């Protein structure tokens, strides 16, 4: 067990890394290497994001005019349902955990691989099967129930492919269960010598919290969707009121998972941002323990607040009270994170590389997303706001402004490590700004629309809402460009990007102390961790002088 030398100055690609270790298709499809699995996830997830994005674009175009002229209502319903299903179940939930988590969680704790590589591969295949199932159902004619599948419309009245899509969601659930299971085991048993719990990067803490939610929540949506399918196929009278069922029960069981799932969609983003903020202000993150435990707190409290989706659904007023109260409580940990991130910048050495721009964008957007969450937790107000565009705007601020931005930030941050190539910093900055501006242009008007009372899931709307919808659509086009740019320059960097070297930013994390791209088993010998998390000082063992000389060499 000897120390890994901090940086390697040679710029020849390592003779053997996870990418060139076997190039046949078989070597990819049967790999047990978490990095390769992560790359395959990256590709699939991006494709689903693209598809979901196209549907989103269609929605915005349709909403340019008050009438439902571009799409008829039937198509529109299918389009927004598909947008929701693809984005939530096939992009947002797997995005950061299955791609960045899969790739970096083992490296960050100094392990050769996840604890259960076969399970990891299995989860990828389950995800693929579920995805194909969903696509097949969509090609067959799609589904028009909204991603929430509310009974009794979904159980009895919709004559679209509810069962097929439901089963796709059911199958996909197990993929994320297995991922979460794998993370928990890995964090418990695979930590390198010296990598104590409080030396773990916050990215790992966040993923531990997410894994908890995945394991405890996902099975419930699985059984719920199963019952939904049964209700359609055999009229079991559990959700369908016409035969003695209870539609509200469906909402309870659905949100028992789907609210915590919202935290599956934001906690990993918070993890990434904690990394970025700390590393790009080259300073130990402020209040490490508080951020770590607030992640766990969010995961736990997240299970106690699902009823705030049901304030007007006919739920008991008293239940509403309890849920509203706990919703307010769960706001606190998020606030703690915000404050600590801000405090981390104080007296740092802040550099504005592309990933940092995304991180700062995240802070701005998540701030709005989180605060508008309070609007929707306050019962009196939610009676007016729920099921309007205010809700749509809110969760896009959290999901897109949170998870997607963080995902892009993470991709840019770790791209040099994953591919060994550096992307164009210029275009990176441009796209980061375009995304930020475009996003706000798209979704801020929707807050106003919402308070004016424009209901969601409307193909046609009263004319007085048109102006703001035009703003929104215009912004969406900017956002679209901002999101497409990375696809171009990142792909380009694969061919023409300059070699990044092992540690372009001279960061202390374990992943920056191994060659890029990393070798198949990450470390040639198990590392011994002697430094705290985010240790930039002497103890980090980084040779900064060496790095400065390196930069002089590689000025191009």
């Amino acid at each position, binding site marked *: 067990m000897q120390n890994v030398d901090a940086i390697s100055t040679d710029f020849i690609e390592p003779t053997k890394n996870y990418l060139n270790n076997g190039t046949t298709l078989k070597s990819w499809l049967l790999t047990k290497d978490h990095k390769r699995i992560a790359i395959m996830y990256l590709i699939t997830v991006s494709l689903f994001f693209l598809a979901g994005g196209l549907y989103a674009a269609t929605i915005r175009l349709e909403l340019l005019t008050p009438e439902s002229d571009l799409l008829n209502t039937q198509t529109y319903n299918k389009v927004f349902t598909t947008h929701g299903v693809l984005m939530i179940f096939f992009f947002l939930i797997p995005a950061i955990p299955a791609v960045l988590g899969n790739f970096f969680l083992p490296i960050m704790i100094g392990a050769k691989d996840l604890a259960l590589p076969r399970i990891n591969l299995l989860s990828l295949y389950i995800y693929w099967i579920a995805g194909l199932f969903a696509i097949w159902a969509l090609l067959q004619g799609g589904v028009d129930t909204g991603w929430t599948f509310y009974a009794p419309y979904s159980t009895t009245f919709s004559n679209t492919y509810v069962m097929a899509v439901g089963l796709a969601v059911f199958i996909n659930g197990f993929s994320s269960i297995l991922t979460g299971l794998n993370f928990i085991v890995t964090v418990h048993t695979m930590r390198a010598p010296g*990598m104590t719990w409080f030396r773990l990067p916050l990215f790992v803490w966040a993923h531990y919290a997410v894994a908890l939610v995945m394991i405890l929540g996902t099975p419930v949506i699985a059984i719920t969707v199963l019952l939904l399918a049964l209700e359609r196929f055999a009229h079991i009278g559990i959700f369908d009121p016409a035969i003695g069922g209870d539609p509200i029960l469906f909402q309870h069981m659905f949100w028992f998972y789907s609210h915590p799932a919202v935290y599956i969609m934001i906690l990993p983003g918070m993890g990434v941002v904690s990394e970025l903020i700390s590393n790009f202000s080259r300073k130990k993150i402020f209040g490490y323990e508080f951020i770590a435990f607030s992640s766990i707190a969010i995961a736990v409290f997240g299970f106690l607040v699902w009823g705030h989706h049901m304030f007007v659904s006919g739920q008991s007023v008293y239940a509403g009270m309890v849920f509203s109260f706990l919703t307010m409580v769960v706001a606190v940990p998020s606030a703690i994170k915000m404050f600590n991130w801000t405090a981390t910048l104080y007296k740092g050495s802040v550099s504005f590389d592309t990933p940092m721009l995304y991180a700062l964008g995240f802070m701005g957007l998540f701030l709005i997303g989180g605060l508008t969450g309070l609007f929707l937790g306050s019962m009196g107000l939610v009676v007016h706001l729920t099921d309007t565009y205010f809700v749509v705007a809110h969760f896009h601020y959290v999901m897109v402004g949170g998870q997607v931005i963080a995902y892009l930030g993470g991709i840019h941050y770790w791209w040099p490590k994953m591919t060994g190539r550096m992307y164009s910093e210029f275009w990176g900055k441009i796209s980061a700004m375009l995304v930020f501006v475009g996003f706000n242009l798209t979704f801020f008007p929707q807050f106003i629309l919402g308070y004016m009372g424009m209901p969601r899931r409307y193909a046609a709307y009263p004319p007085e809402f048109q102006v703001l919808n035009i703003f929104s659509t215009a912004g969406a086009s900017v956002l679209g460009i901002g999101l497409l740019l990375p696809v171009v320059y990142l792909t380009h960097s694969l061919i023409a990007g300059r070699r990044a070297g092992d540690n372009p930013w001279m960061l202390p994390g374990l992943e920056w102390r191994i060659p890029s791209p990393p070798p198949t088993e990450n470390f040639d010998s198990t590392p011994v961790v002697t430094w705290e998390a985010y240790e930039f000082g002497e103890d980090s063992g980084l040779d900064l002088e060496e790095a400065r000389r390196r930069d002089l060499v590689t000025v191009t």
Partner: protein
Amino acid sequence: MAEIHKDDHVHHMEEHAPHIAMPGYLGVFGILVVGTILTYTVALQDLDFIFPGANTLLALLIAFTKMTCVMLFFMHVKWSPKLIWLSAVASFFWLAIMFAFTMQDYLTRGMGVFST
């Protein structure tokens, strides 16, 4: 790795050593059989004079006892690391959350003038 993980491994060491001898297993088995017979017999008695639902409560108590035996001895939880205990307890805690928070809606539906 080992020295770092010593704390996690304390219980682990014994795992190679057999936990309980044959009589132990048979004893647990006996408890389970008795429990089963007990459940059946008490189920036939009308215990509502104690309080309504006493039967169900008793049946559940017995079931929990049997479950505990199986988990502690057959599933070797008794000799497992704290984490295993934790996960076992946690899962039931979360089950309780699901039951309690769903029922708090249904049980308070009637209350108040305006319960929908």
